């Protein structure tokens, strides 16, 4: 009843090509953005902003990056954590070498460095695909981790290899409160998500999807394999690199290879699978599920007080989490994004489905 596009006519190509062609969707997105930019910083406390929303946003960004590669281009990658580490260390090196530089410029440069590294490790994707590609990206992950632990140059010869990140500065303004860090992260994520959304709707995005659906057919109709696949790796790594830099600078406050271990790569892959392959919205939903669920379970059990011992609780967290993943995959194998779509279709007919 409320969600119905009857009476909304498209009179121009621009209207037809809009990201959100239905007016209710536009209002909905505007409302979400308003909540994100205004309500959350006002109502949220340090804990909510610093430890819940910022990790969620950063992981959403990493999931978008991986989704471009896995969901849109069909190239399976386990190198996400490695590319995140490249972004983090690149940002650290750039920020310490040029302390006067605006943090946003540092971020973009770090993303570009990660993109170049991704380009190199994307080369094997021209010859191998599927699980074999997953293995080569896994090798990339371990190679990157090894480089950062063994060459002191990357950590400015710190004897421990763990370095605290330099302060975040832009235009003379130091970003250090949870509110400002949150707003900065949110702005970056919103802009990059918009770019990603438009990218996958562009010619390049369609070429990616053609490769995903059948690479031989895509080649036959004239899509250049080399350029398209490598661009997918580069763009994906750019996103992951920026996510890694944000993770190190904005959330942890330290730059260390251990923060980007192989579990991190699996985590992001789960986000993409649970959220929905080939969906920007799904990246957010998946990140929300994986980041927020463990915190919700621990906090939820805390309500019952000391009745649940911490050791039981921590195992319970893993059990519930695993059960929920299985549950969602059985109920909706195409991910949370698909659930959302089904819900919207039902809503169009509501309350008179016949």
């Amino acid at each position, binding site marked *: 009843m409320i969600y119905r596009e009857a009476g909304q006519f498209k009179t121009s190509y621009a209207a037809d090509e809009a990201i959100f062609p239905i007016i209710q969707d536009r209002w909905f997105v505007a409302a979400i953005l308003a909540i994100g930019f205004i309500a959350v910083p006002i109502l949220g406390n340090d*804990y909510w902003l610093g*430890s819940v929303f910022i990790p969620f946003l950063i992981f959403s960004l990493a999931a978008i990056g991986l989704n471009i590669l896995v969901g849109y281009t069909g190239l399976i990658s386990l190198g996400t954590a490695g590319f995140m580490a490249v972004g983090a260390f690149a940002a650290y090196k750039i920020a310490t070498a040029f302390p006067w530089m605006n943090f946003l410029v540092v971020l973009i440069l770090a993303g570009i460095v990660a993109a170049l590294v991704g380009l190199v490790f994307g080369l094997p994707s021209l010859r191998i695909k599927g699980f074999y590609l997953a293995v080569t990206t896994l090798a990339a992950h371990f190679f990157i981790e090894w480089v950062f632990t063994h060459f002191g140059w990357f950590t400015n010869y710190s*004897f421990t290899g763990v370095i605290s990140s330099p302060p975040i500065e832009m235009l003379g303004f130091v970003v250090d409160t949870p509110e400002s860090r949150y707003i900065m992260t949110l702005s970056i994520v919103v802009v990059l998500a918009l770019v990603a959304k438009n990218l996958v709707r562009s010619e390049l995005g369609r070429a990616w999807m053609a490769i995903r659906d059948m690479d031989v057919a895509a080649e036959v109709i004239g899509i250049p394999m080399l350029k398209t696949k490598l661009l997918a790796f580069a763009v994906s790594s750019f996103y992951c690199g920026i996510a890694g830099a944000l993770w190190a600078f904005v959330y942890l406050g*330290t730059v260390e290879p*251990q923060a980007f271990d192989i579990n991190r790569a699996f985590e992001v892959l789960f986000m993409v699978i649970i959220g929905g392959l080939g969906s920007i919205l799904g990246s957010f939903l998946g990140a929300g599920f994986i980041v*927020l669920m463990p915190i919700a379970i621990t906090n939820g059990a805390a309500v019952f007080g000391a009745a649940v011992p911490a050791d039981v609780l921590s*195992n319970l967290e893993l059990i519930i989490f695993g059960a929920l993943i299985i549950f969602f995959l059985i109920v909706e194998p195409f991910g949370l994004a698909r659930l959302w779509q089904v819900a919207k279709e039902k809503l169009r007919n509501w309350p008179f489905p016949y």
Partner: protein
Amino acid sequence: MNFRTLALPVIAATAFAVSTGGQAFAQAKEQFMPINAYWTGPYAAGGSAFGGGMIDYFKMLNERDGGINGVKLTWEKCETGYKTDRIVECYERLKKNGPTGMTLFHPMSTGGTYAVFERAEKDQIPVITLGYGNTAGSDGRVFPYLFPALTNYWSQNTAKIRFIGSQEGGMDKLKGKKIANVHHDSAYGKETIPILEAQAEKYGFEVKHYPVVHPGLDQKAIWLQIGRQYKPDWIILRGWGVMNPTALKEAARVNFPRDKMVGVWWSGAEEDTVPAGPAAEGYIAAGFHASGTEFPVIQDIIKHVYDKGNGELPRERLGSIYYNRAVVWGMVSAEAVRQAQDMVGKRPVTGAEVQKALETLDMNAQRIEGLGATGLMPTFKLTCADHEGGAAVKFQQWKGGKWVQISDWIETDQSMVRPMVEAAAAKYAKEKNITPRSCS
């Protein structure tokens, strides 16, 4: 499957859980202590003892003395899985708990220490890292809220070289000797490399570093090199977790004498030697505290907590290395609060007050005796500039299924460590644009 009937309770429960979590329970006359440890994951053997031992000590204080000067201790557990991001999450979740917020914070991980100490300085919560953490933090002028108290990694290392020297019959006998440093290839493992190099130069011995990749289950190649090619006189084992028993077994395989192997205190617990079986016999490890249950403080815990069935751990773990370490951590935490109460009055104290108290904390022999911990821990004294306290180190040997003390408290070489700490702190201060505060 009907999605709606299944999903609605889940969503409702999640929403409820999210909305009610993280609240502060404000009550008077209580002192809140965060207990973030790891009951799951690869390092749970240590983590469960750390969390349980500290809680046992606090329970005993509440039961025996009614808290600290009438202020009851409260705590909340937080599972970190030894993961840095979860430690940050625990820190943020617990920091506002209790009437005065979090009193102090034990990150229980080197990575976690680096991640929280800057925010803790902003929030005015002291970060205590007894026996681990950021070595440079010993310079209190640059790191006012970081307390790597008792003995940091570098100091421990100098004590170890002194111990080796005493076994050889004098520091001058170290000349020309060969020492292999078998270390965990991580921030923690690499931390002692510079101090070892400096000592090698000073005493004229040769040192070679052998990194072991996490988690350290495959060390065959390294031990062949050590046993067949390098043939060192001594080995320093700087491992963590499953790497330690593996190293001991490999050492037995290449027939390297175990009584020429000296472990650091993260390689010297029952959890490291028992799985190695007979291969561990004769192995030596450092410690900043003793094992055993004969100390009055442990007896009090048994009497007031375990005999009433309130213990956190199985009884047989009492007196183990990791358990006693946690009790020492608990004692230092409680004494910091007591000291702060002496300075500002017998009420719940804030993090900033505890920070000031820690900088005057003098754990002398008399105070340790009052706690019933003589022989359990060394004496140390913190000041504004010195956040370490220069405690001595003891060495113990694994004999017949238990740790036996084989040395007295061996003093560390502060004349070497302190200048290096100050240089590292100065480098950090320069990088971060910090003007060190004056301590005079």
